[in-house]
């Protein structure tokens, strides 16, 4: 028996045999799927190809803050509006969730028992209730707000109603570009100053007031420039006309519901990550830094946080990825993101399911990979550097 199947005991042969088998089966399956799919598509009279992208969409998108969208625009533009809306809610959500999560994580470790219990209850409720339910709940709260006629006013400039939040829209006049250039230049130079100051401190021990000089560069200089140029910025206030507000900047309740639910849900996870990160720094580190006479705030900033970040960043990355993927739930409340706009309405109108889904999936994959890529770079920069 053994001699007959001798070649089969050879590891090299077996490895090649099994891999060829798997590839063969996979190719066979793929061939079968492509064959039946093209047959099915032909039978249902669905054209394949990408030409539908240039056809007019024929529907309106209610929330498109970056691009002007008309119903005569193409499906390709629906895609771009969707991507921008997805990115908008993901980026704002990530920022808010990080800030809230860090605050809650630190408060959870507070020595005040009542406060830390309160945060614990919040975290448990927020983590254990499905996100979709939270989004729908926030949306149902927002659309039960008073109608436009009775909208709530804040400081006479913001109006809150069941159609969203109306706020003044900033109008940038010709000179404003100089101010923005000044801000960008100030950001770059304060970054360079920080590097230079660190180098100088490492070599000579002399300190440089980086924080106050950066504040001066970023805020004071552009502000002076702003007034010299004669305040090239004005606001267009929303005004009541007929049944609705005209003008101004409107933030739709769909976006607010998505933003609130995503950031509150993810903040609960981030706060647990932050708590675990801070607790992972050994007690000896805190005691040693107190022993050499560092102030309490310095201990946190120079000793605890840098070490905690090493533990925090990898799971934080996966939370950002989760938040971005979860933003696809906007479809439940009609937020015109990638899945709702392009993968939902466009798909239904054109019937080109395979193309639309392929584009949507590829976009999410590239967004995920981009986030992973940048977070990996950041992660590498904060890890232990072996000298």
């Amino acid at each position: 028996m053994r001699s007959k199947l001798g070649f089969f005991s050879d590891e090299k042969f077996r490895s090649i045999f099994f891999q060829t088998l798997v590839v063969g089966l996979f190719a066979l399956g793929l061939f079968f799927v492509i064959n039946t799919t093209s047959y099915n598509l032909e039978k249902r009279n669905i054209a394949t190809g990408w030409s539908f992208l240039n056809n007019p969409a024929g529907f309106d998108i209610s929330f498109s803050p970056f691009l002007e969208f008309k119903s005569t625009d193409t499906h390709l533009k629906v895609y771009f509006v969707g991507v921008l809306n997805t990115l908008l809610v993901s980026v704002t959500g990530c920022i808010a969730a990080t800030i809230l999560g860090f605050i809650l994580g630190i408060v959870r470790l507070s020595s005040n028992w009542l406060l830390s219990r309160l945060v614990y209850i919040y975290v448990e409720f927020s983590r254990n209730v499905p996100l979709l339910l939270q989004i729908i709940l926030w949306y149902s709260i927002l659309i039960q707000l008073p109608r436009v006629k009775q909208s709530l006013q804040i400081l006479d400039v913001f109006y809150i109603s069941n159609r969203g939040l109306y706020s003044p829209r900033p109008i940038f006049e010709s000179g404003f570009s100089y101010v923005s250039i000044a801000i960008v230049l100030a950001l770059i130079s304060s970054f360079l100053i920080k590097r230079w100051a660190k180098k100088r401190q490492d070599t000579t021990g002399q300190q440089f007031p980086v924080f106050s000089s950066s504040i001066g560069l970023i805020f004071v200089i552009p502000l002076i420039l702003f007034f010299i140029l004669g305040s090239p910025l004005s606001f267009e206030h929303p005004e009541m006309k007929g049944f609705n507000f005209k003008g101004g900047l409107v933030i739709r309740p769909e976006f607010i519901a998505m933003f609130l639910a995503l950031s509150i849900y993810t903040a609960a996870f981030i706060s647990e990550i932050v708590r675990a990160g801070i607790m992972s720094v050994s007690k000896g580190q805190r005691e040693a830094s107190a022993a050499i006479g560092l102030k309490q705030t310095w201990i946190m900033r120079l000793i605890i946080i840098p070490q905690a970040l090493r533990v925090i960043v990898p799971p934080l990355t996966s939370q950002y990825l989760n938040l971005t993927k979860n933003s696809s739930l906007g479809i439940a409340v009609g937020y015109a993101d990638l899945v709702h706009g392009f993968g939902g309405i466009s798909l239904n109108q054109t019937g080109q399911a395979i193309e639309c889904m392929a584009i949507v999936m590829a976009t999410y994959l590239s967004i995920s990979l981009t986030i992973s890529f940048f977070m990996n770079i950041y992660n590498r920069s904060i890890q232990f550097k072996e000298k």
Partner: protein
Amino acid sequence: MNEINQVRKPPVATTGIIGWFRINLFFNWTNSLITLFVIYCLYQFIPWILDWTIFSADFKYNYLGEQITNQEMCSRNLDPENGGACWAVIYVRFYQFIYGFYPKVEVWRVNVAYVMLAVALLPLLYTQLPYRKYFLYFTYIFPVIAYFLLNGGLGFTEVSTNKWGGLLVTLVLGCTGIALAFPIGIMLALGRRSKLPVISMMCTLFIEFIRGVPLITLLFFGMVMLPLFLPEGIDMDGLVRVLVAVTLFQSAYMAEVIRGGLQAIPPGQYEAAKSLGMSYWRMNLLIVLPQAIRISIPPIVNTSIGLFKDTTLVIIVGILDLLGIGRGTLADTNWLGLSYEIYFFVSLVFFIFTFGMSRYSLYLEKKLKTGINMGAD
């Protein structure tokens, strides 16, 4: 001499209840201010929420003593000043929340399945169970029994899956997804760590692809694209299509968790198994996997919690799970406007399940003393 040897008691202010209060609530004046502020907020909030949810709420009858059959009879609509929550909607629609539109005559089958599920889970959750071996046999055949019980066949009348709904669908999706994803996840994890480059690459691509896209796109894939892939005549049930998507999704996450467990096994274990002349499968089945799965149970429970919550997404493709029944009830003119009551109830049901699971995973973590955290959602 005697006085020195006598142990002095710590000051009263640092021990007992007073000491606890001083240390945890009134340590210094900022701490005391925070405590007082929190107590004030709670004092404002808790009576109001208790009043709304319990004391002024209608459970079956409104404040006039009439049995509530629609939203107009709720105390909070008759008397907006004093009326609290109107839980009568849950009372009236309870059957739908738990069984969906399952025929009333056949509903005993669902109840039997619920009880059997609890029995089947028992040996998995509690390892010290007496006669655990025999219980486990039951666990293995339970899916088959449940299929015939719920779906029909073998003498039971058939109940089409579009009549299923509510908690039934949530549990079917959650349990089946987790149970099917477990073996697939193990295979994917082994495949990803395989020395055969083609197999390893295919598994890695599959896992990373699934993890890179949102579940909702996979559900759309199952709903819209899967029928196109299948030859004519094979008509897939809506629930099955969703299950395919959910299982694919969960198995990729499960694979990563199990891979983490596999990586934690010291290479000596592999070497020892090989030196005894074990084949690849024997080595994995008898030596590596039992250890790897043991240490990855807490993160497996954590991803399972994630999946259980994510099953709510099926409402977007038109399957009525617990949340779907809730939304359906809200769309009914009889119960219009009772969104807080309905969402509160659905949240509570999910909270009970997921919080229970997370407590269980914490208990396991303590028992196993592994403390491996994969950062899984």
